[in-house]
């Protein structure tokens, strides 16, 4: 019986109610935080457009901005994966590559992605390239680190088994090390896509003139806190969805991990 009740909605509903009460009873300074109903209404107009007046930048432009941001995240993330996974395999597998490259990665990694912003604009200008650089770099670190970790964690016995069955280094990397590292690689991809959404908002606030990050900053300047909040929800939702997509993909690829013994 209790299984049928969707308990997960309880806390969000409570928080919504609290939010509504806080604004309604003026527990917060008036005019700063919009009530939930106003955010919902503005969000609806932003998505579907307002009848009659369509000149407002917050009328019917949601989909376009979501697509801008999503495309940037996707491109930056794919670049990060295309570089990060092979590099992680090399670092984890080859001691020479590891001692050559790994220390530098660990040195650069603590530099926050936001700190790269001026550099990125100076080099790439106010263009997509600037955003892609920040997103790609941000997503690269968790992907390369987790791939390396996954490779190093490969069971010695499986490596021995493969060698004993006649496998050379290339076969071992492709058929033993890579599949064995996949769970860890997917962890890196999930963390990476999270960072990518963070980076796209930062980049769009400053380095380009479109997308959800741009809308967020612009709305703040013109005092549209309702749009700011709607943007926050939008980004959260997109981040959640992209995480679900990668998770579903990993369940599909790693089907052999979720099976159970017959006894």
């Amino acid at each position, binding site marked *: 019986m209790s299984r049928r009740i969707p308990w997960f909605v309880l806390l969000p509903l409570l928080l919504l109610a609290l939010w509504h009460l806080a604004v309604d009873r003026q527990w917060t300074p008036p005019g700063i935080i919009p009530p939930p109903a106003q955010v919902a209404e503005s969000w609806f107009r932003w998505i579907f457009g307002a009848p009659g007046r369509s000149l407002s930048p917050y009328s019917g432009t949601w989909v376009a901005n979501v697509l801008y941001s999503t495309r940037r995240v996707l491109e930056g993330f794919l670049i990060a994966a295309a570089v990060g996974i092979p590099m992680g395999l090399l670092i984890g597998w080859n001691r020479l590559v590891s001692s050559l490259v790994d220390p530098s990665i660990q040195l650069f990694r603590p530099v926050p992605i936001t700190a790269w912003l001026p550099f990125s604009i100076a080099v790439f200008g106010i263009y997509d390239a600037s955003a892609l650089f920040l997103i790609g770099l941000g997503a690269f670190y968790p992907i390369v680190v987790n791939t390396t970790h996954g490779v190093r964690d490969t*069971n010695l*016995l*499986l490596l*021995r*088994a*493969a*060698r*004993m*069955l*006649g*496998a050379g280094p290339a*076969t071992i990397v492709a*058929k*033993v090390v890579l*599949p*064995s590292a*996949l769970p860890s690689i997917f962890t890196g991809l999930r963390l990476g896509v999270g960072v990518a959404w963070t980076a796209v908002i930062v980049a769009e606030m400053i380095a380009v003139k479109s997308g959800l990050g741009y809308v967020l900053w612009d709305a703040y300047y013109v005092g549209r806190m309702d749009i700011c909040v709607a943007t926050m929800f939008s980004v959260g939702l997109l981040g959640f969805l992209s995480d679900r997509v990668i998770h579903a993909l990993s369940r599909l690829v*790693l*089907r*052999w*991990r979720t*099976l*159970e*013994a*017959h*006894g």
Partner: protein
Amino acid sequence: MAEPRPVPAVQLVDVWKEFLKRGRRVEALQAIDFAVERNEFAAILGPSGCGKSTLLNMVAGFDRPTRGRVLVGGEPVEGPDPRRGVVFQEPALFPWYTVLDNITFGPRTVGRAPAEYRPRVEALLEQVGLRGFESHYPAELSGGMKQRVGIARVLVMEPQVLLMDEPFGALDAQTRSLMQELLLSVWERRHQTVLFITHDIEEALLLADSVSVMTARPGRIKKRLVVDLPRPRTLELTTSGVFNELKREVLALIREESVRAAAEKGD
């Protein structure tokens, strides 16, 4: 008195092995002289930590001796090779491959044509009782079944020597007995040369043509006993008088050894 004999399948000549453990040198194996003849089922029996797995790893090519020579078919061992199939204590199957893909991993890796290995795979699936489980993943199998896949995937390579490192040590008693019978029936078919590591006296006597008893660390071969029991053998053999006679002999050797080891520790 040295009569010309055929080259042994496996031969260890004055093999010594030392390890570095926290900066200290540890002698694992001392002056091992040991041979397995062709078509012989040889067991090495010893207490845990006596270096018997180290010995097998050197024959497999995973490890090198500090001193001495390891020869297989008269040739020095340089590294792992499909001609020396290893069955590990843990099944060590590739969890992302099905039973069939695990068994065909070797032939596919060395580039054999499916037409060549298919008939043998089919026969092996039958012999080890895995028919119907070809498309299962290791996670779906019981411990005994996983180990049968582990055996089939090396037999499909038709190795010169089958190296087994306590392959049934992690199984429950009943499954272990079944696996011993299965191994006996597989062995009867091809009289495969086997080097079998175990600490189980009954297992060694039931399966092997010869049992070499090892000392506690540093490991040496204390004595090689010939198990002159009729074949084909079954589990019932373990209840016979002759079997118990041999068992008593091995027990006496091992007791002697543990008394000595305990006395040395007391120093």
